[in-house]
């Protein structure tokens, strides 16, 4: 397969996140004023309105909150059936990602998952998840 996945445009608000993923880390943005975690990243904390933030590195453990298996339409750069997972992270917060290495009938809501950083053939890295070992 020659086509590659659609890449996220990078701005001040999300570029840093992808840079951390490129360093094989799964970051979760954290308000430095009130310590609230937030994902997806945004410039201001909705709890205290601080614009100061850093991030924590997630351990990568989570559970499957919901999912969908995509069949149609099919886009170049992706393998089908394509399982999209909504994952509750152990630290708190939720992430939308791809579930791999799991047979269709083995996909169960609340199943334990582990996140990992996948690298495409073109070198682009992004978080994915698979059933916990």
């Amino acid at each position, binding site marked *: 397969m020659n086509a590659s*996945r*659609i*890449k*996220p*445009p990078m*701005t001040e*608000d*999300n570029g840093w996140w992808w840079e951390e993923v490129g360093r094989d880390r799964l970051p979760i943005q954290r308000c430095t004023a009130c310590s609230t975690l937030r*994902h*997806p990243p945004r410039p201001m904390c909705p709890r205290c309105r601080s614009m100061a933030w850093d991030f924590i590195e997630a351990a990568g453990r989570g559970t499957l*909150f*919901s*999912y*969908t*298996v*995509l*069949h*149609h*339409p099919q*886009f170049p*750069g*992706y393998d089908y059936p*394509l399982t*999209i997972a*909504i994952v509750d992270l152990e630290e708190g*917060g*939720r992430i*939308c*990602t*791809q579930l791999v290495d799991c047979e269709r009938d083995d996909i169960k*809501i609340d199943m334990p998952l582990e996140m990992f950083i996948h690298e495409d053939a073109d070198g682009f890295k*992004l978080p994915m998840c698979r059933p916990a070992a």
Partner: protein
Amino acid sequence: MSTALHNTAAIAGIGQTTYSKCSGVSELALACEAVSRAIDDAGIEPGEVDGLVTYTLDSSDEVEVANSVGLGDLTLFSQINYGGGAAVGLVHQAAMAVATGSAKNVVVWRGMNGRSGKRMGQGVSGTIISSDIIHWSWYMVYGMLTPASWIAAFTTRYMHEYGATSEDLGRIAIAQRKFALNNPNAAGYGRPLTMDDYLASRLVAEPLRLYDCCQETDGGCALLITSVEHARDLRQKPAVIRGVCQASSRGQEQMTSFYRDDMTSLPEMELAARQVYAQSGLGPDDIDAACLYDAFTSEILVQLEAFGFCARGEAKDFIADGALEIGGRLPNNTHGGLLSEGYIHGVNNIAEGARLIRGTSCNQPEGVEHVLISSGVGVPTGAMILGQA
């Protein structure tokens, strides 16, 4: 709570084009035809129209429509964001303009080559449908690009928590297809649908199948909104706006509100329900028919709960015995809806709501006093209640 929008404005004109899979004309042509027909239906002159409202996604500028249709001075022009979430919001803009005197006769429309042109079901890749590109990028990167995929993620969790089944979704698709069999302008006209057909249809985004997904349609639909007082003097029986609102809630994203604790309810639709019930002084028991936004079948279940027709998780029981069909508790989308008439982004559902008040639906239930209509599900949205003059 706004009371200025209670019994102030009415839908006095409906215009629609033929709905098809290939119009052969421009989106501007569809818009002009629909707008022109709404004006004629109401029985006013083009020069009397002083307001125009459409979707940010509509490709036809207000002034281009005005020049084609021969409109005169405009004192209101506005566009509403969020795809189908805009639908009732157009009427909300128009009603506010009428209530404040900003405009007297407002036409709202949507004209789209939704099948032969830009197909929304084909996803947000290529042409990004929103300026909110960073938002979409969190999902695009994983190939989660289509409305079906976003709604499916909610539907999986809903079915898991409440035990709803594919057959429950199928019942909704079949009920609306039955209505379409009496609507010559519907995509489902002449195409009956059985549960076997439904269950055999291909998976699109699990748990959603082909027949859980709305049509992709070329067509235009427009409505003329004016004061109740003026509407009484016009050609058609007015559909009086008892209440109309927009609604968005904490944690709202455009189609991807995945980060709320609960993924099985619609806080924004519950907000819309509170507003229109308070504005109108009505409750779910007063609603005789509905046109709930139906881009996907599962959206109906969660809306029945948001609008209080049944308790959380009980929509599957509510619909089990034909509640959404003629003679049922709440005939819903009696024209076939987005699922089986066509996808004119919800404006065609509002048009049906007005027809239900006029008594001219192709599947007219008896004794319709009040109709509930909603905008898109999963996006910033809105709702409206129409009643008799």
